[in-house]
């Protein structure tokens, strides 16, 4: 799907510089996806911090016990 985004020349220059992309569309796409992933990560971790979910995992020391023969 294509969308139209209004940006100033200065903002677009910054986006191209930060993303190191040459094409405007690819730069904006990269930035949007990175922001989306960070927001999703925060949402899931906020829920975990609030006690809404957790995982029944053993401590890392048990996960990393190499085989006992």
């Amino acid at each position, binding site marked *: 799907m294509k969308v139209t985004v209004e940006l100033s020349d200065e903002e677009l220059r910054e986006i191209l510089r930060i993303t190191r992309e040459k094409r405007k569309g690819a730069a904006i796409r990269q930035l949007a996806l*990175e922001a989306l*992933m*960070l927001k*999703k*990560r*925060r949402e*899931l*971790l906020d829920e*975990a*911090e609030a006690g809404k*979910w*957790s*995982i*029944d*995992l*053993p*401590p*890392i020391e048990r*996960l*990393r*016990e*190499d085989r006992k023969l």
Partner: protein
Amino acid sequence: MISMIDSSIWVDCVRTGSPEPLRRQTKTLIMNPDSVICEPVWFELLRAVPRRDRARTEALLSTVPLLSTPTDLWLTARTLGQKCVDAGALPPAIDLLIAQVCLHHKIQITTFDAHFQQIGKVSALQVNFLTRAR
């Protein structure tokens, strides 16, 4: 600085019964926009996650950029392990695989696991070794 988040950090962030200060500490590390992950960490975590938590765990891990796995990983990790043995250390096999991915991509690892310090003594691995918040 780009940093691999080790499984030890992930486990303490989402594990049932993890103390509040430890959850906060690990969340901050994982939320760093320069955090990355690798396939051995995916493997180590997801092979131990109960069925009911798998979809959510995968959704969480998917929000972190995944580094490519070097094609010669098994061979180079074996050599790395042999260097450790020659220095008198025997880190777990999975640590060697994770460390070797970091060495390949020239990035540091953030971890609570002291075995990576042993690996750092025999290689160029940059280790951000942390102690757990209490």
